[in-house]
């Protein structure tokens, strides 16, 4: 099982690839929209890439609850493997 830090680091890489945000900026307390400037379309790309990377399903209804990087990491940690 990946650690919280491993998931954060992998997610940071995805955010970097999709939106060009420096991976080091993608910390648990950062808001996707307010701090990292990830808009809703980029968020869709991040979610799809995260689903592939972590082998989980992130339903559309859930995406709006993932406000911070920490929210997304926590969701991925508890989500059953798809």
């Amino acid at each position, binding site marked *: 099982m990946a650690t919280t830090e491993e998931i954060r680091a992998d997610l940071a890489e995805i955010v970097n*690839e*999709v939106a060009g945000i420096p991976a080091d900026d993608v910390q648990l307390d950062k808001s996707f929209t307010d701090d990292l400037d990830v*808009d*809703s*379309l980029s968020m*869709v*790309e991040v979610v*799809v890439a995260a689903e592939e990377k972590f082998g989980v399903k992130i339903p*559309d209804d859930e995406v709006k609850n993932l406000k911070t990087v920490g929210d997304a990491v926590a969701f991925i940690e508890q989500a059953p493997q798809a």
Partner: protein
Amino acid sequence: MTTPIQTSTGAAHTRILGIGGYRPSRVVSNAEICEQIDSSDEWIRTRSGIVERRWAEDHETVQAMSVGAARDALKHAGVAPEQIGCVIVATVSHLLQTPAVAPLIATELGTTKAAAFDISAACAGFCHGVALGSDLIRAGSAKYVLAIGVERLSDITDRTDRGTAFIFADGAGAAVIGPSDEPGIGPVVWGSEGEQFDLIRQNEKWPQAIDAGDKVMPTLRMDGNPVFRWASFEMAKIAREALDLAGVALEDLDAFVPHQANMRITDAMARALRLPDNVKIARDIATQGNTSAASVPLAMLRMYDEGTLKSGDTALMIAFGAGLVYAAQVVTVP
């Protein structure tokens, strides 16, 4: 006694012989769009890549724009109207339910009683038309086929709808398809996903509009994020399938010409496909908007004009839209 029915056979291979386009005269800026929606030039540019679009004037009808595009394509192909055996018009914005607009276009062009009909495959219409045209020629049903994609989406766009008013636009594109010594149109990968019928649709049926006493016709609505997800990722898989069926490796591709739905979709598809840097990507949407069935040929034309595409190049075309429906094929550029 049963008489065996004779069948026809056509050319072994087909290719696109010429393309043409018609861009409406009126340029509509993001500032003008924002007079009716609460948005901004910057928001529209970052969300769609659209800087401006073209909307048709009254005289630029579906028929007139189609004829303009088709004449260019015939000239480019060196094919006379009388040689055309079939005219296929892909459109969702010819606002007369019957008859189809294709017979009028065939007649105005001067074809000799060519078969002519409309198809409704929304934004995927042009790639459907190319697939049909190619197969008609290989079956011997026609020697030359004219496939047209044409829209006046401004007529069915709600100019106060923040989600769509800035996207849709007008125009026409056409291709002449004919027999070829070498394969110039790869196998089509196409399909439909009716369970997602509601994602892009008119907001109501005509009888509902009449019952409600509406003085406006039904207009387009789109559920943006699910469409973005489907178009960017599911369609990348379809694009890959079209390459595989044609036996063309990503490295051997010269150009990627997707339906000009949204620049962000084009970018996301290119990333999902892992397109090599040397593959040229069509980006006509920036100044043309999303012209639905007309977008692929118009985008290809711009690449010609800008010198990024030349005759003999190998291009991957893919188009997708309301239905949901999609079609993709690899073609040799005329």
